[in-house]
């Protein structure tokens, strides 16, 4: 498949155990090196095309995740990295976890794993790029890019 542009990535730890976070970081370093695809890990949501969220969300991070997502320019895709981000994982039953990231913002790609392996994550990013291209096409055709906010 072709990767047409150089997508930038925003990583946020919603309430992860760090395992997935270091794997996200590890995938940008020499062994796995997603940067060779032009992907750069940025800290600024306004620069980012792809949002990678690790960990399930709690009452505290809900607002932060929502805010970061709304600051990103369209088109954008969201990757839930690790099983906790997908549905809460082992911490599902904890009193302070309200579930996966998709309870707050729409998720395009789910990458399971505990912790997520860099290979899986890169695969997820590549999938996300295809979705990003689709969304870009849709925007070109004047279709509006939908943003869902579920019960605020």
């Amino acid at each position, binding site marked *: 498949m072709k990767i047409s542009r150089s997508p930038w990535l925003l990583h946020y730890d919603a309430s992860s155990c760090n395992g997935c976070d270091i794997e996200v970081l590890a995938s940008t370093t020499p062994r796995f090196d997603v940067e060779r695809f032009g992907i750069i890990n940025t800290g600024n949501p306004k620069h980012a095309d792809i949002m990678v969220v690790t960990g399930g969300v*709690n*009452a*505290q991070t809900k607002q932060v995740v929502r805010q970061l997502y709304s600051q990103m320019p369209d088109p954008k895709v969201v990757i839930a990295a690790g099983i906790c981000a997908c549905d809460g994982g082992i911490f599902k039953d904890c*009193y*302070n976890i*309200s579930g996966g990231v998709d309870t707050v913002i729409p998720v395009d790609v789910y990458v399971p794993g505990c912790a997520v392996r860099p290979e899986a994550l890169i695969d997820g990013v590549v999938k996300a790029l295809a979705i990003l291209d689709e969304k870009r096409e849709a925007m070109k055709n004047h279709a509006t890019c939908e943003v869902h906010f579920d019960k605020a």
Partner: protein
Amino acid sequence: MEQEFRRVSRRTILSEVQSLEEEHYRLIQICATTVEDGYEILYTFGKGYDEVQVKIHTDEGEHVQSISRLFPPAWLYENEIHDLHGIAIDGITLDFRGGLYRTKEKAPFAHKEEKEGK
């Protein structure tokens, strides 16, 4: 090796801790446990590689004296105990008044049925 958990009264904890402070012990940790008839608070002090465990018992709704004047880092543990177990602690040097842990559920480790009654 059997560990010794020395039980002292909630009222004498300050004097107990005072004597440890004079012997140059350091605070290792404070931990609260929810038990059937209230809460237990376990203080661990250390000197070199030795440790001393002191335990107090407190009933629901009772106030506990802070030891943060004697052991400065205690403010963090005591705020945590207040936020998670809902135990009132008096005289913390840096009192967050429930603002250290921002949890969805207030005092998640507190006794449930009594909380609902309130």
